[in-house]
């Protein structure tokens, strides 16, 4: 939603050019960072063992032997 608002602002204030573009990029980065943070929080707080490569980084997620985790 924040990104959409900023994008609309960028169209309306096109003369601000690169500044607005930077603002959008930063917002997008923030959104992604927030999503990643939420992702980690979600899996650690509600499911115990983090999942996917970004979470646990254990051997089975890096091409090593599969561990005993029963969730994907």
């Amino acid at each position, binding site marked *: 939603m924040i990104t959409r608002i900023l994008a609309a602002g960028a169209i309306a204030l096109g003369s601000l050019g690169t500044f607005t573009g930077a603002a959008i990029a930063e917002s997008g980065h923030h959104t992604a960072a927030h999503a990643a943070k939420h992702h980690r929080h979600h899996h*650690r707080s509600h*499911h*115990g*063992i*983090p999942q996917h490569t970004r979470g*646990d*980084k*254990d*051997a*089975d*997620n*890096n*091409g*090593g*032997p*599969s*561990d*005993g*985790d*029963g*969730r*994907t």
Partner: protein
Amino acid sequence: MATAGPDRRPAAASVLAAALAIAGCGSAGAPHSPGTYSWLRPAAAPAGWQVGRLPSRAAAFAYPRGWRPIRTDPGTFSAALKGRDGQILGYLNATPRSGAETLANWARFRVAHNREEGDRSVVRESAASGLRFRSGTGSCVTDRYLTSSDARYREIACIVRGAHATTVIVAAAPPADWPRLAPQLRRAVSSFS
């Protein structure tokens, strides 16, 4: 007599199948043959082996000299024997039951789970249920697979229901190293408690 041959073949096949089952030649077609896991003899850690425990202290297993604890998921414990290039040659892991796996569905679940995690060419070699461990009863499956980084592993994976918790233990090694490491892997699984 012309009719004797056909009558005897089914009987002979049955006798052969029974003999193979008794001998423990388990395969994907014999998912509940404890004889395949006759090596499983619950026993304490051998002298000189280290004991790795889950952080919860709910389960433990012994691992051989020269093996080291490695980074693993929170709440779990893993130990490995690494090669000079850092490749995992031998792998042991204990993880609290965390999904839909049960003692009853273990043989199917484990193989399907490995596929879901990106392993390829997953082949179930044998499975058994009603196995006795130091801390309870379990089901085991032996399978082999190719990881996303093209490393081949063979594994023994067991789920064990104890008095207070259900835990999975995995023992794995590359097929090429299996003959050398299997005795240690099986001994580690046998020490699981």
